[in-house]
Every structure is written in C-alpha cells, then in structure tokens.
C-alpha cells in the first residue's frame, strides 16, 4: 500500500519547489527600491491610524466550534459510508441515528441563536 504514496511524495516535493522557483525568479527579476512611504500599511490611501488590532468577535469561534463538531462527525461517517453496500438495514439505521443526533444538535444551536452573525 505504501508504493501508492511514492508518487504523492514526489508530487509534494515538486509542488513545494514550483512556487519557490517562481518566487525566486521574481526575486531575481524585480527592482528593489525600498522607501518608507511605500512600506506604510495600506488603508485606502489614508494615513494608517488607530490600533492595529481588531476586536475579534466571539461569533467566529462559535462557527469554528460547530464546524469542528461536524468535521469529526464526517470523519466518523466515512468508514460507515464506505461499507454501506454490505451493511444490513439496522446498521444503516445506526448511521442515520448518528446523523439525526447531530442534526438535533444543529437545530438546538440554531434555536439558541448561535448561528446568527453578530
């Protein structure tokens, strides 16, 4: 089974070198004239002002959490879906129960307003 991954390994190495080569080419070809005006942070042409840190809304975190839950659920469901063709009906029902529990959790989060943006 490991022989399959040789190609993947080679491709990953090539994939890592390709952008490096392109950026290296750009580094060779481009002018380098740094200038304090050019190095300012872009803020639509105005002078950058204010704290450089934004208030991070907790809403992002909730979305990431819900995503994590469903992500783990999907990883559990992959082996189930794979052998689905050989499963008896009750095993399919087990999987459906799994999904139904998580769908109930999603509905709970929805009703509690956790899926609102701000």
């Amino acid at each position, binding site marked *: 089974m490991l022989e399959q991954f040789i190609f993947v390994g080679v491709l990953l190495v090539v994939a890592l070198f390709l952008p490096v080569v392109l950026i290296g080419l750009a580094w060779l070809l481009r002018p380098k004239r740094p200038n304090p005006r050019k190095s300012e942070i872009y803020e639509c042409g105005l002078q950058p002002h204010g704290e450089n*840190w934004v208030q*991070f809304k907790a809403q992002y*975190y909730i979305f990431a959490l819900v995503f994590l839950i469903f992500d783990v659920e999907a990883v559990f469901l992959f082996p189930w879906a794979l052998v689905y063709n050989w499963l008896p009906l009750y095993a399919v029902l087990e999987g459906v129960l799994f999904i139904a*529990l998580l769908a109930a959790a999603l509905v709970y989060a929805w009703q509690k307003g956790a899926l609102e943006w701000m």
Partner: protein
Amino acid sequence: MTVQQVLFFLFGAIALGAAIGMVTARKVFHAALWMLLAFFGVAGLYVLLEAPFFAAAQLFVYMGAIGVLIIYAIMLTRGMMRQRLPRVNDQWWFAGLLAAALLVVLAWLVWQHPWATTTAAAPADSLNRLGLTLVDPEGFALPFEVASVLLVMALIGAVTIVRER
C-alpha cells in the same frame, strides 16, 4: 537503512522539531504555526504506518479544524497576539529535572516492552473492516453512538458557554 527508516526519521524529526519550536516560540501565534507543522509530521508517520485514512483524518480534523480553532482562541484573548512572552520562567531547572526523569522512565518502558511487531503488510481493505466493525453490535456500535452523544454534548456546552456574554 531502508527508505522507510529514512522517512521515519525525517517525519519524526519534523514532528519533534516542530514541537520544540512550539514550546520555545516567543509569540503565541508562532507557537500555533509550529503546532500545525507538528501535526503534519504526525500525519506523515501515520502514512508510514500504512494507515492513510488516519493520516488524511489527521490533516482534516487537526490541521483543518483544530488548528483554526486554536488560532481563533488565541485571537480571542485580548493582547495575546502582541506580547512577546519570555521563553523560560524561574523554575525552569526543576521542570527540566522532571522532564528528564520522565524521559528516562518512558525510554526504559518503551525499550523493554515486548512490542508485537509484524512484517506483514496491512490488509488492503483495512478501512472496510474498520467500517464493518464500527457498526457491528458486537463490535463498536455502542461507542459509535456514544461518540455522537459526546459531540452533541460538546456542541451544547459550547453554545451555552459562548452565549454568556
């Protein structure tokens, strides 16, 4: 030195080096990035163990979901992104002593345990077998459903905690 051994040392070095980078990083964001590299190294080790599904699941869940979650958690902490934390604190000598003792104990345990090794290749349909075992009533069907309940509990807990603003 077969190719597999070389790759094992390579991925092990990536995982360990990234872990060391993670605990010695000055900025918390860099520590999170080192952690992601460590996950990648572990995924490579899974591939060498002929468990490609778990390697992909590692990339998927750990790098994709948990990495993002941890970076979000870091960003939620006010000011965390801008501090440069000191690398060591005052009790570092004691911690080093404890860590060295733990290392000795673990190394001795690993060395003298009779590990069940096999040179046979992993069965090609191991993932199918995993799936069949997961839903088998004499297998892991109950833990499968309990895992779902656990996830539901996690979601409910998360929604409750974050809502109290």
